[in-house]
């Protein structure tokens, strides 16, 4: 640890230069005071510019004592052009106002118009919350994760499944960050709704490849969700009433322009509505979910600002006195932004994140069963951005995460006899150091190169097992075990993760980009079901589980047409994954101290082509995306050791998203999704045993048949209230129909005996059952309001 900080402080010493002046400051929204992420400051005379970072800070270094024309711009906002004399260093904060157009134009990405082409980033998608809010909804709820699934390369095994799959990765291979704290389960009600309250979200960014070295810890993607800071100009209230949730958020300045807060809450109310219809015995039963999001910030000097954000969410199921079941995340993030100099921006983050669930059967003190499990982690993360000169931006920093895994605390009382069959906790420390440089080599070539060094220490206190060799695919028996003290190292791993990206500007409107990244992942979700369940547990890499690794190569062509009205991108990627986790048949994954003996190690590969065509301007906007992809796995002991398609392999995926501004009052939207069926394992034959008809897969081929094509059309319409100067209340009605033509899209197909009670020597009929999670059209209405 000591070396780590010595290294960091040595790097800080870099920023010593002469005969130069640095223009720097923050870019904000004039209306709310929110900092703008990804706004630009562009020096016309020099043809160079800078982009504001996640905290709205920009810095650009030029020769001292010159006068320049500088344009500050952000899409959907009025640009400001100013002449500034940059003598010595100049701190210049600026506020931009939203464009006041006749018709409210929809902004697809809140980015500079041609950023798609000029930026070095590839395989990233940024979704603006205002765009997400325009999409047709399921039951009236604005959904961040479902919106992501309309992007190329992002899929799900089906409606109701939690999480999302990126370029062939499983759901635990996405690092979902809410103000930098990882969210271990991003769903409410299994997978129908995500935990993010759209009223509190400012920015959503997904990295599918070309991941900069400042991020790490997961193989497939980084979903970086940033919360609003809270209006620091005036009180603002947002809310909505829908079929499922009611939401309310309040944001206001505490000290104008210095401190502000936002607090946002949502709660489902199916249980409240159902209560009068339940019998007395069932009054304790119910189902609800809620979340609470809070953030505050304080600027205590021109150079220092702190942010405190917190999230708390929970899903509750209660079945009378018999059983209760609940789960949820909580996170807390404390951040301190500090300007060491005009060129050196620093942020120190401390976060806490926790996911836990509880299951209780019976409340009789003589007979009950209490079970809970948890993953807790704390992390400290210093980050530095050095705006060395307009051609080099160097970022460096580190991170340490302390994990505590409680894979299962379980106490059973049977007829008064108490038995503890919980599992021992597991501990680990994950650390990383990184450095990266974003460099303009020439007007045409820009590169970002970096290195991340990650280290994982699986420690006591705990018991580590050694397992015997077994036939591939069979359970391995415990040979020996050893007890370790608290923080005593059981197994360590370390990896260098090189990252590289390059952009070649072909001409003013098109560019070629390529990237390579290696990622390492040290913790995984243990789950062998189609959709992950809330009781799945996270487990660390250990003496028996190697860290997962991946190498991804991506190549893309980006082109903007007709004055940035149209944006086109095409990418190909190839990803190889190592040490993937799989499971023996009939693995015991829950409350099993010898879980590691039921795991198999395999490898994976994913490759594909992704096309995206966007129309960003005009009354009609939207995008069209197409993905051609293959995701395969190979594990000794499964599918006779041959490659097979993964459960979420979808060959073709086509989405269309359209928005149309009909007039001042009405805007329309629609979403069309067409996806190839996912593969599933079907039996070949049947046999009988003691009267039961058992399915058997004689070929042993995994995922041998595909379910039929998935397609769905959703439509939406928004009736907007009048916006008049001085009017404090603004309301809008949102109408949606999900699955307009009632397509019964199969989530899966099962097999079972037709009569589930079989009698002696009679032939039992077997049938195939199609499960369509949403087999009907679902209309909804919701009302959203804003007061300020």
């Amino acid at each position, binding site marked *: 640890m000591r070396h780590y900080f010595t290294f960091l402080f040595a790097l800080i010493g870099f920023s010593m230069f002469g005969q130069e002046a640095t223009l720097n400051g923050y870019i904000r929204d004039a209306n709310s005071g929110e900092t703008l992420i990804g706004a630009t400051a562009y020096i016309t005379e020099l043809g160079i510019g800078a982009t504001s970072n996640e905290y709205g800070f920009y810095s650009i270094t030029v020769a001292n004592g010159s006068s320049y024309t500088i344009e500050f711009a952000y899409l959907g906002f009025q640009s400001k052009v100013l002449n500034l004399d940059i003598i010595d260093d100049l701190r210049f904060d600026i506020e931009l106002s939203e464009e006041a157009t006749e018709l409210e134009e929809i902004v697809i990405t809140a980015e500079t118009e041609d950023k798609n082409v000029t930026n070095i980033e590839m395989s990233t998608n940024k979704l603006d919350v205002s765009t997400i809010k325009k999409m047709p909804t399921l039951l009236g709820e604005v959904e961040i994760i479902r919106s992501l699934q309309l992007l190329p390369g992002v899929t799900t095994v089906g409606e109701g499944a939690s999480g999302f799959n990126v370029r062939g990765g499983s759901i635990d291979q996405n690092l979902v960050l809410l103000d930098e704290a990882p969210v271990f389960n991003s769903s409410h009600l299994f997978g129908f709704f995500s935990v993010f309250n759209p009223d509190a979200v400012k920015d959503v960014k997904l990295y599918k490849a070309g991941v900069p070295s400042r991020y790490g810890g997961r193989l497939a993607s980084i979903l970086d969700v940033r919360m609003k800071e809270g209006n620091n100009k005036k009180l603002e209230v947002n809310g909505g009433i829908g079929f499922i949730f009611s939401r309310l958020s309040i944001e206001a300045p505490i000290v104008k322009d210095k401190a502000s807060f936002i607090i946002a809450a949502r709660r489902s109310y199916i249980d409240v509505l159902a209560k009068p219809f339940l019998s007395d015995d069932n009054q304790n039963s119910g189902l609800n979910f809620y979340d609470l999001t809070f953030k505050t910030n304080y600027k205590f000097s021109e150079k220092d600002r702190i942010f405190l954000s917190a999230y708390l969410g929970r899903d509750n199921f209660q079945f009378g006195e018999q059983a209760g079941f609940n789960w949820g995340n909580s996170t807390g993030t404390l951040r301190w932004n500090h300007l060491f100099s005009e060129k050196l921006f620093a942020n120190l983050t401390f976060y806490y994140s926790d996911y836990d669930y509880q299951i209780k059967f019976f409340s009789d003190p003589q007979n009950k069963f209490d079970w809970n499990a948890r993953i807790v982690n704390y992390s400290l993360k210093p980050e530095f951005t050095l705006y060395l000169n307009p051609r080099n931006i160097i970022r460096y920093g580190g991170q340490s995460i302390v994990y505590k895994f409680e894979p299962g605390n379980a106490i059973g009382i049977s007829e008064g006899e108490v038995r503890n069959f919980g599992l021992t906790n597991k501990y680990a420390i994950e650390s990383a150091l990184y450095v990266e440089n974003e460099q303009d080599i020439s007007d045409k070539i820009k590169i970002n190169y970096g290195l991340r060094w990650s280290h994982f220490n699986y420690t006591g206190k705990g018991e580590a097992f050694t397992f015997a060799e077994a036939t591939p695919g069979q359970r391995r028996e415990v040979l020996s075990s050893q007890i370790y003290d608290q923080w005593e190292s059981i197994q360590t791993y370390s990896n260098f993760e090189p990252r590289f990206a390059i952009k070649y500007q072909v001409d003013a409107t098109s560019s070629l980009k390529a990237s390579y990244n290696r990622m390492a992942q040290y913790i995984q979700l243990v789950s*062998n079901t189609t959709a992950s369940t809330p009781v799945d547990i996270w487990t660390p890499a250990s003496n028996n589980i190697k860290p997962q690794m991946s190498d991804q190569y991506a190549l893309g062509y980006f082109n903007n047409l007709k004055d940035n009205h149209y944006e086109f991108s095409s990418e190909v990627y190839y990803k190889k994954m190592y040490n993937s986790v799989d499971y023996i048949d009939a693995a015991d994954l829950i409350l099993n101290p010898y879980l590691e003996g039921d795991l198999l190690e395999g490898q994976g590969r994913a490759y594909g082509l992704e096309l995206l065509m966007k129309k960003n301007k005009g009354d009609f906007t939207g995008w069209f995306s197409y993905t051609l992809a293959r995701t395969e796995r190979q594990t000794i002991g499964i599918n006779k050791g041959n490659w097979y398609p993964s459960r979420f392999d979808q060959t073709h995926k086509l989405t269309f998203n359209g928005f149309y501004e009909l007039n001042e009052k009405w805007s329309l939207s629609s979403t069309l999704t067409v996806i190839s069926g996912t593969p599933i394992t079907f039996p070949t*034959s049947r046999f009988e045993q003691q009267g039961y008809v058992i399915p058997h897969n004689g070929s042993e081929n995994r995922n041998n048949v595909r379910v039929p094509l998935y397609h769905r059309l959703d439509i939406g319409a928004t009736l907007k209230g009048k916006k008049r100067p001085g009017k404090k209340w603004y309301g809008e009605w949102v109408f949606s129909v999900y699955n307009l033509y009632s397509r019964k899209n199969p989530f899966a197909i099962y097999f079972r005996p037709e009569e589930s009670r079989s009698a002696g020597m009679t032939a039992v009929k077997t049938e*195939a059952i199609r499960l369509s999670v949403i087999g009907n059209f679902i209309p909804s209405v919701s009302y959203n309001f804003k007061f300020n």
Partner: protein
Amino acid sequence: MKNYYLILIAIFLFASCEDTIDVNLEESDPQIIVDAWLDNNNQRQEIRISKSLPYFTNEITPGVENAIVIVKNNNGNEYQFAHEANGLYVYDFNENESIGAIGDSFELNIAIDSKNYFANAMMNRVTPIDSLVQEYRDDEVFTEDGIYCQVFARDFDGLGDSYWIQSYKNGQYLNRPFEINIAYDAGFDSGGELDGFVFIYPIRDLINETGDDGIPIQWEVGDIITVEIHSISNDAFKFLEIMRDQLLNSYNTIFAEPLANTVGNIYPSNSEDTVLGVFNVSAVSSVEQVIE
């Protein structure tokens, strides 16, 4: 099974979204099936030998009629099972006679044409039933009010005892997938290590009849309930565990696991064939009551 309530929630949320469809399956060659679950209880012992069928062939698997089927006890007794019909081989014991005693080991030998198959099993100890309790339960979610039963028995000390608990309503064997009730020590599976404990609650309770939605059905006054505990081998337990998971998998809706093949304990001695099914010899303890 560990996720019993999760299954109930899933059924509650998704059951209405199901319908029956036609699908085409891969086909594979027929395999030999041996269904050989013997016990020390009944005078008549049966072994059925047949061949597997494509999954959607709605027929009884065709019997193998020319097999020679012999069970040997390690005490030297040898029983040749006689073919009755359609692959069913039987041996009728006299009264006061049975295939063996707890602790005996057995070998099954099957010859079909020129191919031989064998399996080994031991008759394991079986725990006695302490009591069968009838109780009235109030209306709850997933429970209608009425009379329900629980069976109490204590697992022996020492890891690895496994049991198949079977129940009958008025003489009818309760064999819906939800009614499959097996215990490893006193718990659901080997991971729990519930050694020497009274059978945990859901196991005590799974002797009740269930509907095809898995929800228990109450007993009527005058019904006769019979509960049997069969000692089984760990091989047989593993087989039944996968069988139950596969038969219940269709109720797991979005949380289904991939199809897994059961693993039997019958092996070829002079070919590469795989044989489906299990040879097991149980000791049985039982109790019978009239609901009142």
